[in-house]
């Protein structure tokens, strides 16, 4: 077989050119991957909300509408419904450029009572597992109204540790940590269990428990003392623990998600603050 010498030389040149291109390619990909990793780690940080008993995934529509109407940033809304047979359905959509969407997780079984709370926490774990896989966020913010806060507490204590995802903030609104008991002297089984397992809570979590008051000691449904019992669970274990009481208009238990003060609190404590630095990062994209 005759080999063309000039041809072999050319093959050598092509191979050399390819190797030559590899060097600037190396620099490019190193830089690109570094930048991507940085963005990736600060990108998607959803607010995952759980409504209270007998409420549906539409429970927070008014709240989210109000938040979106007040800020420049428009948060998208994804609704997730978990059925008793384990089926999970999605409605709504996370917009590709929205890095702080709202995700509302509701359950077919939305009944009251400790045994149901535990079931719902287990179902939430399933939904959360899917969400984390689907959207690959590495941190999120938790928001629970009424019994939604109980589901979150059970979830954080029982299931959270197995995830590579960080819970940054938990805000519960009108959550009856001691159900309808007005005194912590009479601990319900649930509160006793929550206190027993409190060491499993994430250490770098900031917790805000918000109580509404219609009268001096209740929001019309949940006693203020039951909300305040949350301190026996969270205080001293998590990074920050803050109790807030709101009064006035819309402070009745089921009005709380539309309460203007609470929306203010969500914007300030739950949502990411648009700092100068993150703005700059966005512009450079």
């Amino acid at each position, binding site marked *: 077989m005759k080999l063309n010498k000039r041809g072999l030389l050319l093959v050598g040149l092509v191979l050399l050119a*390819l190797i030559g291109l*590899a060097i600037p*390619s190396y620099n490019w990909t190193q830089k690109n991957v570094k930048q991507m990793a940085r963005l990736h780690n600060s990108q998607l940080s959803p607010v995952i909300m759980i409504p209270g008993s007998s409420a549906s995934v539409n429970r927070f529509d008014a709240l989210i509408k109000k938040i979106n109407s007040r800020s420049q940033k428009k948060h998208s809304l994804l609704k997730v419904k978990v059925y008793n047979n384990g089926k999970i359905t999605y409605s709504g959509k996370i917009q590709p450029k929205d890095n702080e969407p709202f995700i509302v997780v509701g359950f077919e079984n939305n009944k009251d009572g400790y045994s149901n709370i535990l079931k719902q926490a287990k179902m939430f774990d399933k939904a959360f597992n899917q969400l984390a896989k689907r959207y690959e966020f590495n941190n999120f913010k938790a928001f629970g109204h009424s019994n939604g806060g109980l589901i979150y507490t059970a979830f954080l204590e029982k299931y959270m540790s197995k995830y590579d995802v960080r819970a940054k903030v938990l805000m519960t609104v009108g959550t009856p940590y001691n159900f309808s008991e007005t005194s912590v002297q009479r601990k319900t089984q649930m509160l006793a269990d929550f206190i027993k397992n409190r060491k499993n809570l994430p250490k770098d979590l900031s917790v805000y428990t918000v109580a509404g008051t219609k009268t001096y000691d209740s929001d019309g449904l949940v006693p203020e003392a039951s909300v305040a019992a949350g301190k026996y669970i969270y205080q001293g274990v998590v990074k920050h623990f803050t109790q807030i009481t709101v009064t006035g208009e819309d402070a009745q238990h089921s009005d709380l998600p539309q309460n203007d003060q609470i929306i203010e609190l969500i914007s300030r404590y739950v949502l990411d603050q648009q700092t100068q630095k993150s703005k700059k990062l966005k512009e450079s994209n």
Partner: protein
Amino acid sequence: MLEQKIIAWGLKVRKWSFLRIIQRTFAVLFPFILIGSFAQVLEFSLLYRDGFLANLTKIYDWLPHYRAFNQLFGGIYMLTAGIISVFAAGLAAKYTAQFAKRDGQIAGVTGMIAFFAICYQRSQNGDQLNFKLELLGFSGLILGLLCGYFVGLLFKWASPELTTDKEHNAALFERSFRALLPITFALIGALVINVLLGLIYKYQVFETINDWLQSQALKQSGVLPVFLLATLTLIFSWLGLSGPYESNTFDSDQSALRNLNYALTHSDLAKVPDKFNANTLYFSFGTLSGTGALLALILALFIVSHRKNNRRLAYLTVFPGIFNANASFMIGLPILFNPFYLVPFLLIPLFNMLIGALLLASGLILPAVYPVLLTTPGVLYSFIGTNGAWVSLLVPLVLLICDTCLYIPFVRFAEKISDAMEAEQRKEGVAHEVK
């Protein structure tokens, strides 16, 4: 003897009239496609924000008006390779008619008009001439060739044989009168096809098939589906069409995104969820020497080709070939519709993927999960996709050399067939050659 048999078979294939017409057509199209290929590399690699050369040179930072340059080369590409099927239809009609000793010139013009008629789209405002652009370009090539071939056949059936090829006025008019019948048939036929095509488009037959293939390509991962889709993609490319892996983009490939997310969170490529997907197998290994391993074929031509035209072809197409812009080479040799080259065109990439799959499974090489720039040379895909793992540069380079060696016997056979063909033609004399 096997060698003799293959050469005899190759000779037979090359004598098929349709293939001979295609070869002549391609020979005329070649310079336009070549210029188009260079323009394409400049447009999409050097002057495009996500292009390979653009990002390596950061040209967008220092070249003033780089967008204008992009448009200039985009225009050159559009007006050469972008409307190549129209010329293919005309030339195929011309050569088919000439083979049958009919009027080639009028047949050629009729072929172009017939193809325009097939691609014609009624416009809404009525003051513009509209065509289905995707059919005018490379992906309409097979349609254009068939259209031209049938127009040529119409001239064969519906017009008498030429007795003279003198071109003085009276004789020309004589020929024009005789061409009226085939022109009419061609136009009516083309418009009927246009209506049928319109129906196919209306009911989105192509879109449905294409969407399904695309969605499979974006959904399926795992060794077997990737091999099947890769095979399909290669057969499609051999026909000049785009297959399931052609327009693959990172942003919509779920499997690639899963891998990327994992890699960015854990920065450990060895344990990504989808070790075998389009990126880690097909783009990293299947196309490491270009679609159908064509860069390896170009290199093989450098080494063993003794035909001057083939060597010249290799010199001219190696630059676009490095950036996987292979249209000119595929038309120049030709590879398109050439049954002889289908075998290595399919098998060599699959061989590369097999080696890649074995290396990936054994953990000797990492899966490519990071995004790679547009028109990145295939050899560098895996290297860049692993964020610069040197093994992933070495292995593809070795495989490129292997591919070149694998192509060498095919080049030798192909050239023996060409030699035999020429010898035969010399024997028969030039009597059969048409001017």
